[in-house]
Every structure is written in C-alpha cells, then in structure tokens.
C-alpha cells in the first residue's frame, strides 16, 4: 500500500492504555507501602526511608521522592491529555451520551461515565496530593503524614482521592482487559463475567485497605495533634538519648 500509514492514532491508543496501566500498577503498589502504617509506625518509617534511598545510599534523599512524584505527574498528564480526547467534547455530545446512558441502563456504559467523572476529579485531587509530595518530600512519615492528615485536614482530600482513584483504576483495568485482551470468542461471556467480578473484588479490597490505613493515620494524627510537627523516631532510636 502507501507505506506511509499515520501511526498516530495507534500510538495514542497504546500510550493511553500503557500510561493507565502503569498508573494502576503504581497506585496498587503505593497502597501497600502507604498502608504499612497498619503494621505499626516503625514499619511505615522503614518503608519511607527505603523510598528515600537509605538502604542504597546509607542516608535518606527525599529528593528521590520528588523525582518519582514528578515522573508520576508526567504520566498522569500524558494519560489525562490522551483520555481527554474521549470526553464528550461539546454540549451536544454530552447530552447525547447522558440521554443514551440513562435510557440504556447498561452497566459498562455507565462504568465508563464513572471513569470520566473520577478521571476528571483525579485531575485535581491527584495533582494536589502530588504537589504536596513533590514540594515536601521529606515531610512523609508516621507522624508527619498523620499530622498532615489530621491537623492539616488532608483526610478530606484523601478520602475523596481514595474512592476516585480506586474506582477509576479498577474499572480501568477491566476495560484494558476487554479492550486488548486476547480472550477466545468461545468463552468470552464467561471470561467477561469473571473479569467483572475480579474488578469489583479489587476495588473493594483497596477501598477497605485504604480506609483502614486512613483511619489509622487519623487516630495517630489525633493523638499526636498536641505535638503536631514533631517527627517520628523509630523504636530503636527512641532509646538513644539526645537524638531529636
């Protein structure tokens, strides 16, 4: 044929999905690390230090965290820009889609709308969170985080972010599987039902995990409120005098 295909649309679609996939994997991992607080302040402390590169370099470099935050931000930006193309672009489109969704009462169509809404919300919520992480990478830790969440009232942001991101990520992964997945036509109905079940399971799991850790941060934050700003000392250092 012509030999000059416009690969743009293919690349854009791949990139949209790939960025989504990476973000999902990141956020799931992030949830496990961040909920290390459930295992105790020390666990969380160690995780924090780990990400600041202490095991590697012998001392923490919070800038590393800023770096990761920047990368993630770029990923989100790329993903959002690509996904934005799919948003209803005009009032007419929006009306058409809404009428369509309302009449059809079709779960997967509605789920897409949920993705659009949560995506839209994430645009602000995730940016806010990332900004904090980016600007104050050293301000992460059992007390620092808890104080931010309780005394700094960040729990409101996180509660919203939690719901949005997990709905968005769960649905997104399901969509990715349906969108690209080499599912044999013969068993596709069954496969889809299973995927859907898995999606809800994953969403529920992370919402529970997130709620539990957020609650834990909030408890710690409330107890620590009088000393807000004070940094956490891991158990093995607390014994050493003169180490503030």
């Amino acid at each position, binding site marked *: 044929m012509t030999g000059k*295909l416009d690969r743009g649309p293919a690349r854009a679609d791949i990139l949209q999905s790939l960025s989504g996939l990476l973000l999902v994997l990141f956020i799931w991992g992030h949830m496990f690390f961040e909920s290390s607080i459930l295992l105790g302040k020390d666990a969380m402390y160690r995780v924090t230090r780990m990400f600041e590169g202490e095991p590697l370099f012998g001392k923490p470099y919070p800038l590393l965290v800023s770096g990761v935050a920047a990368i993630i931000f770029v990923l989100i930006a790329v993903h959002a820009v690509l996904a934005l*193309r*799919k948003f209803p672009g005009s009032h007419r489109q929006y009306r058409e889609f809404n009428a369509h969704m309302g009449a059809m009462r079709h779960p997967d169509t509605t789920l897409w709308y949920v993705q659009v809404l949560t995506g839209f919300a994430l645009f602000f919520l995730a940016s806010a969170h990332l900004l904090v992480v980016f600007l104050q990478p050293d301000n992460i830790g059992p007390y620092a985080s808890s104080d931010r969440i309780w005394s700094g009232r960040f729990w409101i942001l996180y509660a919203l972010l939690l719901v949005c991101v997990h709905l968005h990520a769960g649905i997104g992964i399901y969509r990715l599987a*349906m969108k*690209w997945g080499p599912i044999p036509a013969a068993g596709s109905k069954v496969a889809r039902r299973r995927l859907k079940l898995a999606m809800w399971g994953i969403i529920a799991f992370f919402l529970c995990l997130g709620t539990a850790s957020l609650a834990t941060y909030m408890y710690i934050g409330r107890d620590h409120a009088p000393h807000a700003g004070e940094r956490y000392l891991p158990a093995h250092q607390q014994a050493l005098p003169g180490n503030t």
Partner: protein
Amino acid sequence: MNRIPLRQAARTLRIQILRHNPRDPDSQPRLQTFEIEEADAMTLFIALTEIRERQDPSLQFDFVCRAGICGSCGMIINGRPGLACRTLTRDLPEQITLAPLPAFELIGDLSVNTGKWMRGMSERLETWVHSQNLESLDIDAMEAAMEPELAEQIYELERCIECGCCVAACGTARMREDFVGAVGLNQVTRFRLDPRDERSDAAFYELVGDESGVFGCMTLLGCEDMCPKDLPLATQIAFLRRRMAATT
C-alpha cells in the same frame, strides 16, 4: 397436549410511541400512547401492525422478514435497542415505550434509514473480498479448498444482519457521527480472516486505524450486549485493535 406456552390473564398493553414525521412541517416529536389487548404469542410486530390497522394508519415502522433475520426492525424498546419482530410482549411490562433507533436518519416514527448508513459503511470500509483473480475467474474449475473450521469461523462473523442495534447501543457512536461502529469493525475482522481477501494489515489500517475506526471504540460493550445475533463483538474489536496497533 398443547405445549405452546400461553399466558392466562390477558393484559392491556400501553404502548407509548415516539411519533414524528419529518416530512410534515407541522409535526413535532411527541409521545403517543396506544392501548391494545395482549394476545398469546404476541410480538411487537403483531402489536404494531394491529395498531396501524385499527388505530392509526399513519404509523410508520419497518418490518420485512418478521422472523429476526433481515435486520429491518431495530428500534428502542424500553430504552434499549432490539429487534421488534422477535420481541414477545409477554417478556415486557404492561407499559412499553418505543422509539426509533438513534444515530440514524429518521424517516418517520419508528422508521430509520439504516440502509443508507450501512451502505456508507460498506463503501467506506470496502467490505468485500479484494482479490486480483476475481477478474479472470475460472468458474468451470474446482473451487479452491478451505479448511472447514475456517469457513465456519468466517460465517460466525458474517452472521451480522446490519440491524444497527450495536450502533444505537454505542455511546461512542452517539457522540461521534463518523464512528464506524461495532458492525463496521466486525466486518473488517470478517474480511481480514478470509484468506480469499488479499488485503494486508496496512490496507486495513488505512480503513480503520483512526479515531473513527477501531481506536475510537472506548470499549463500552453496549454493542456486544445488545447484538441480537450474539456476535462476539468485544473479542473481534480487541483482536482488530491488537492487529492494528501492531501494524507498521
């Protein structure tokens, strides 16, 4: 001994129809309600025919085969697209709302111009076997052999009756008028599968490798769920997406 399932208590159906005659300058889209007695094994074809014959002879709708095989009678039945001729009223509540398929040009009342849309789609996606040797075909000679399973697989995808339900069920198609819909994407996979069609992936990419083609599909899956022929649309679109994404 009668095993034709019968419903005992007769219901009075209230059928609400979205009426509009674009040829009539005075016509405004409006809902009109008709009441009819339900009969045994009544389909929407029977119900609508009765309404036209007894109550309102100007009512427009399309039926051809009345047997679920020609794809003429797609309409929105209580919010969802489906084939009216094979929808039994006993599977519906007493209150039934009918509207024309959206995304197609309205001819009048429940009648829409799916034919024009489909012809446009066919022309655009070139849904026919492209082969060099069709010109000089020797029809006296034995036919070329084909694996039996392959023939069956092709037929699997060929079962589409171009009813337009998948287009009406697709939020993407509702938002973008140039989207080829699951029907178009499925037909492309049908010809891609067919060894008689000599087109390369690059050629197919030229047809569907953009936002109005396979990359426009947002995997809403309404098509798959509403297709009256149960075509494996989701897997076909996924397949096509993979092939097209891998095309250089």
